């Protein structure tokens, strides 16, 4: 009897001291990014943006030290899963963040659905993660849903008098969702989609598509590309002589800083929509761009770096508000959901909607030279308070099928 009591009391003290220790021990963040494989370039910038914020905050939040453990997901969902397991089960991180490719994010999200570990996804844009298949502990701080920025771009295009659009896009979910957002808003506003061209990832030669686009004689072209495909499309659009004849609109990633950084005049004048414009004349934005450049050999930040920077900022503000008690997951997640950022590099307050996706003032951006002669996306217009549901009621929007190659939300005339 005595022995049992002894065991019980010593267990109680042990567990007490472990909670006490947990409060003073560092907060451990598991950051996953593709450092090898197809998405490696963007992955590097994820790490840069995320760690830059924490370095500025002296790696402290809520009175506790913050440790960042970086793992390479190799641009592969199976590897991402394995790394997520390692971070959670072996390294015992308090929460996860990062990943770039939608499939790596979806795999990890499915894993944390089972164990409740908070997971923050500034780049994973897959609509359903904050819509139909929402997981409570997966929050898109600093990021955007795939079809969030294309409807305002479509609206802007209509206002320019464009009525007939041709679309070129990578044939996978991210492309289907972005194009769906554009096509639905564009056709509901009175425009017509006269052609959609889906091509496989890593297309080297766009001539079959560009030839058809030219023969359709559209008012405007919308292109949804990522990585090296973006560079090739923009270059070939110019070399086919379409640049200057038919205006080109791009998804935010088609013409992201990471793409135009290495390009010449062929990228000038392309229009896109995003929450962040590295060429914006706002003091907060320029201060961030300058600090980023000073830290990473004069590089202008891309969306990958930027979203992870403010993603980290978002998380840090929530941790400060709860005095570092990240072990209380419900409290932590609720606080993140309620946290807004008045002083981010965006220069305007941002908040999360009820589904864990941010609401932004969205810029219409045009590629132009800055005063140093480098190409940047600079704002030429803006749409206030754009949520992932555009002007639709969330419930009604989620009742329609997810955007796919078959369903683009195109309004029947």
């Amino acid at each position: 009897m005595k022995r049992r009591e002894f065991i019980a009391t010593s267990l109680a003290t042990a567990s007490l001291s472990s909670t006490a220790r947990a409060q003073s021990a560092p907060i451990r963040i598991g950051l996953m990014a593709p450092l090898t494989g197809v998405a490696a370039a963007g992955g590097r910038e994820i790490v840069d943006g995320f760690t830059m914020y924490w370095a500025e905050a002296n790696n402290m939040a809520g009175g506790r030290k913050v440790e960042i453990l970086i793992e390479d997901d190799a641009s592969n969902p199976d590897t991402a899963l394995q790394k997520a397991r390692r971070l959670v089960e072996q390294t015992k991180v308090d929460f996860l963040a990062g990943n770039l490719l939608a499939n790596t994010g979806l795999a990890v999200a499915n894993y944390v659905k089972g164990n409740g570990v908070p997971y923050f996804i500034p780049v994973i844009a897959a609509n359903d993660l904050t819509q139909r298949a929402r997981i409570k502990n997966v929050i898109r701080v600093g990021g955007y849903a795939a079809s969030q920025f294309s409807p305002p771009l479509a609206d802007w295009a209509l206002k320019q008098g464009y009525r007939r659009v041709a679309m070129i896009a990578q044939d996978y979910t991210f492309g289907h969702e972005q194009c769906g957002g554009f096509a639905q808003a564009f056709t509901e506003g009175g425009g017509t989609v006269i052609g959609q061209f889906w091509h496989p990832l890593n297309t080297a030669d766009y001539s079959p598509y560009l030839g058809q686009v030219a023969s359709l004689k559209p008012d405007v072209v919308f292109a949804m590309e990522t990585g090296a495909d973006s560079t090739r499309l923009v270059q070939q659009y110019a070399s086919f002589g379409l640049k200057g004849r038919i205006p080109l609109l791009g998804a935010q990633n088609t013409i992201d800083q990471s793409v135009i950084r290495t390009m010449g005049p062929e990228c000038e004048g392309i229009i896109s929509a995003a929450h962040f414009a590295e060429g914006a004349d706002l003091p907060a934005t320029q201060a961030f761009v300058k600090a980023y450049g000073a830290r990473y050999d004069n590089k202008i930040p891309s969306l990958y770096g930027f979203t992870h920077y403010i993603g980290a900022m978002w998380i840090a503000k929530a941790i400060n508000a709860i005095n570092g008690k990240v072990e209380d997951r419900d409290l932590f997640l609720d606080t993140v959901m309620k946290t807004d950022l008045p002083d981010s590099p965006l220069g305007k307050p941002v908040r999360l909607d009820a589904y864990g996706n941010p609401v932004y003032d969205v810029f219409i951006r045009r590629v132009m030279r800055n005063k140093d002669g480098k190409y940047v996306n600079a704002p030429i217009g803006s749409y206030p308070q754009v949520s992932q549901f555009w002007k639709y009621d969330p419930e009604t929007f989620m009742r329609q099928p997810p955007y796919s190659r078959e369903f683009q939300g195109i309004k029947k005339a």
Partner: protein
Amino acid sequence: MKRAALWILVAALVLLVLPQVLPGYQVSIATQILIFGVLAMSIDVLAGFAGRTPLCHGAIFGTAAYVVLYWTTVAGGGIFTGVALGVLAATALAAVFALLAIRTSGVYFLLLTLALGMIVWGVCLRWTGVTGGENGIRGLGRPEMVADHVTFYYVTLGVVAPVTLLMWRFVHSPFGLTLRGIRDSETRMRSLGYNVPLHLFLAFLASGFFAGIAGALYAIFNDYVSPSTVQLTQSVAGLLMAITGGIGTLLGAFVGAGAIILLENTVSAFTARWPIVLGITFIVIMIFAPEGIVGRIRLLRARMRRVSSP
């Protein structure tokens, strides 16, 4: 013979005790090694015993995973039927591949199976309505009874052990000997009156069946499948495991799977350049132990025996 029994006993004991001493995450790695060991063995059946090196087993393996997850999530079926259907689908796919590929050999067989595997990958990528395209299929969570790593390890071991025994019997049966005969001289076997295409077809079928079992286990293990599970790198990874362990040794597959998965895990914790380290390791193995780890050990032991015997 007594010695072999002793080794088997030791191996069984180690495998049984392992999850009791390893922390949770390492148990999941051990489970993964067992699963990939089966995949590598299924490749070894063809590459090591029938002399036909396939590059499509990732696709067969992944097809089983897709069917299991599709059945349990989209179709809302049970896990056991799902596994049965997954293995069946893998075997059926192997049958189709076999019909197309067995008449070729050498580099042609390699390329043909590679192309067939790529077709599966393309279908998984583009048939968005069924496979979820690039996003893949997410499961509903592992079944409650095998949710934790330790239980799942024992379940996997419970499947893998008899499967291994079965494959061992298979390659050491008269049928297996015929395969080895075909590997060494197809024309001689033909002139001896053996139906070579039929033997190869059946070997391919069996190999696909076993790869399907591995794929079904992997589906439950990861609870997620995407085109990267069926892509070429998966087939290559399986083949590399078989080669690293020792082609034609069957059980070397586990050694190869263990070596590669552990190496991947430890090296990637230290450097972002882990694929380079992995690549160099393969080169070193190919130069100094082209017969694989187990093959090399066997060779050394045989040499020692020769030296010690007068």
